């Protein structure tokens, strides 16, 4: 097994906030109906969390599970653990109707950090960030591409498709250009 390469090789930019590409991050798209037998067990076994409620994300340290749609979850975990987690999901859900797909390589992942990180996202996404609940996973668009993000104390983690990673980095850089802060003045 060779070293996995992230979408942008860890590119970063220091504007009025810091944006950097991180990864590769392990990600599994898990599709199952909410009441599916073994779903709780599968999520627990894969990332150690409970199944999240509507638009929420559950965390145990660096492993998480986010609610993506009424029958889809996003599991986040260290990249090397994906194979083990996929096996655990298959075992827990067994013959129950589900679909688990490794999408770790299909994604570009970014961190946006700094006191004004929300300004960068507010410029790009049609989302009322003030109304974003703690622990919320928000799927939306960033300018012209699909994106999902969540907030923590240091800033935001934003996920996009891999092929548009350069575009998303361009957006983040543009929106964080010094002088383009939204502060009043």
């Amino acid at each position, binding site marked *: 097994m060779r070293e996995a*390469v992230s979408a942008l090789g860890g590119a970063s930019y220091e504007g009025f906030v810091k944006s950097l590409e991180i990864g*590769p991050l392990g990600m599994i798209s898990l599709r199952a109906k909410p009441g599916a037998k073994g779903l709780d067990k599968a999520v627990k076994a894969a990332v150690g969390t409970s199944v999240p409620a509507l638009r929420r994300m559950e965390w145990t340290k660096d492993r998480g599970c986010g609610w993506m749609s009424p*029958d889809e979850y996003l599991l986040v975990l260290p990249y090397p653990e994906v194979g083990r987690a996929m096996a655990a999901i298959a075992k827990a859900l067994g013959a129950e109707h589900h*679909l688990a797909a490794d999408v770790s*390589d299909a994604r570009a992942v970014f961190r946006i950090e700094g006191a004004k990180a929300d300004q960068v996202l507010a410029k790009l996404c*049609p989302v009322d960030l003030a109304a974003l609940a703690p622990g919320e996973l928000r799927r939306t668009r960033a300018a012209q591409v699909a994106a999902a993000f969540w907030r923590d104390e240091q800033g935001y983690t934003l996920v996009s498709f*891999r092929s*548009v990673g350069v575009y998303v980095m361009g957006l983040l850089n*543009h929106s964080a250009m010094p002088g383009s802060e939204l502060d009043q003045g």
Partner: protein
Amino acid sequence: MSNVTLRTRCMAAGVYDHGYVLAEERVADHTPGDGRPKKRLWRIRAGKILTATGAIERPLSFAGNDIPGVMLASAVRDYVVNWAVSPGDRTVVVTNNDDAYRTAIALKEAGLEVAAVIDARAEVTGALPARARALGIRIEAGRAIVKVKGGKRVSGVAIGVQAGEGAVLDEIACDAVAMSGGWSPVVHLWSHCGGKLDWDRKHAMFRPDATRPPITHDGSAMVIPAGACNGALTAAEALADAAEAGVAAVKALGLKAKTTPIGKAEVEEEAAMEPVWIMPQGAGPKLRMKMWLDYQNDVKVSDVQLAAREGYNSVEHTKRYTTLGMATDQGKLSNINGLAVLADALAEDIPAVGTTTFRPPYTPVTIGALAGESRGPIFQPLRRSPMHDWHEANSAYMEPVGLWRRPYCYPRAGETHEQAVHREIGNTRANVGLLDASTLGKIIVKGPDAGRFLDMLYTNVMSSLPVGKCRYGLMCNEQGFLSDDGVVIRLSDDSWLCHTTSGGAERIHGWMEDWLQCEWWDWQVFTANVTEQYAQIAVAGPKARAVLEALGGIDVSKAALPFMSFVDGHLAGIPARVHRISFSGELSYEIAVPAGQGLALWEALVAAGAAHGVMPYGTEAMHIMRAEKGFIMIGDETDGTVIPQDLGLDWAISKKKTDYLGKRGQARTYLASPDRWKLAGFETLDGSVIADGAYVVAEGVNANGQRNVQGRVTSTYFSPTLKKGIAMGLLRHAPDRIDEVVEFSVVGGGTVKARVVSPVFLDPKGEKQDA
């Protein structure tokens, strides 16, 4: 208040549906070069919108009202009071209302001379006129400016009786005229989304009709006007109205409102204004031709009256006929006056004539601000395959395929694109070539009903595909027209992986979800679009097997991995799925690996292939090689009006299935007609290449005099393998016409002769791909 954001230099340009407000902020127009953006566009989604946009003073229409030195009374006042600038040493104020007296008083108090106030009203009794009189200002009641004297600047005014026809009673020397015809509330933001207006007779103005507001998504009023824009013209009225509007806004949001006293303004009582639309009232044509309504577009009172006389009676007709209100101020100064003149000419009420439509923006907004960040490198997303940088570093000429960029060819120094393409084809046919096929769509379809679902989606049967095997499939829309194609592989008992065309992945995934969510919602099927999870590389050519064997890890022999099968394993230490499928007609493997390791595999293949003469090839070589093999290409052989049967793909359409998407559509008379154009190959008699887009002409012309046609070319190339022009195309009754000679159109006239042949030009038995 900490929860209030104040944005200065920020104009609300428009109110759009469901509380969407567009605002343009002039961030650094006044501090150029300080590193900040010049402009910023705000897209605001508001629960309620409170507008306090004020009112605009109207000019008066008298002859010569365009001569420099004639200004609005409020503008004169602003120059003097706000900026200590004197517009004139000796000003005549002309008005139909009390407010203009504030200008006269301000001028006087600033030490400037006010030659007279010409007041159209017969009786002038208000508190403000009284103050003006007390300051010694001459007041002429019931009078009008007959005309302004002067050419390049005002030198005086001739005055007469407002009720008269323009007989001059007196002349007053002056160098400025301050005019006031009353005030028009700025109702634009109220009106953009359909808020209706009321005609307020007392003030002769349109004001928001509170009973017919613009509504938002839940049907409630979206805009709450306050102050002068709501018709509350005096400071006292405005304060009271503002307090009321604030409470209304808070309540409308479902919150409790505290009524806080907002203060009272001490203002003089104002006497009623008197609507004056032309001055003097009975002015003849000569004077009317000098009364400007729209200063930018040179529209005069006489123009509007002419429009009415000629029957352009609707206010919109008048606007468009005269261009009244179509200049950059969009009628802010001229519309009400023009409307009133029109109403008068038609002997109708002003409200019956109505206004033109208020359209955003309120004042012009910079196009660059509207285009926003979408410039240069981030104009649009550009999708890159995991090997994108390698292609660019190796001189690839890239072409857009949807939002992707794919190498069209890899020209070497001194090579034209055509030469490069021919070299790439020659090498792939003789040795081995590499194609970046990562852009192909890949969708996993899984579940107890997945087989049944795919049988509805594809024209052939996918449920019967054995695990480990590949099958080519066609997808049609409900009309029956061919929409996508690709190889489907069966991963396990209940899961399949569907390959789509490049750029088709999102569309087809959406199509699948549409049917699963909206039609067959009780079917147990999940889909996942994993297009970007994988880098995919085609290794094609007689030496392809040798290259893969050099990498090692997977048995790629014919016995272990026959044509149209696949295997999972590790190739060069990278987890890989190897498919034996071919779009070039050569012995070919398509290898999928996690995207993060795509470049590593590509480079490993380049290294391992060096001994076998490996070269990358681009999309154009791919297109020509597939045409040599007679394989169709979605978007070339199809254009949204072609069904699989037209392309001789009947073998890929199940006869047994009772239903699939598009089956019913294909049964319609025109689609089932035996006269449809069908796929054929073409070779010109002289070996030349048929022009792109050429039609096969037929005898005669149709009822509209257009030349009859019987077919057209869909793909046409010079085949470097066969050393001659080859083409695929559609021709009426094609299968029955092999060896017939037909004529293709040539731009500019004439035709070129071509023989109808089989569309498979190379290796018809498929021995090479099956090697």
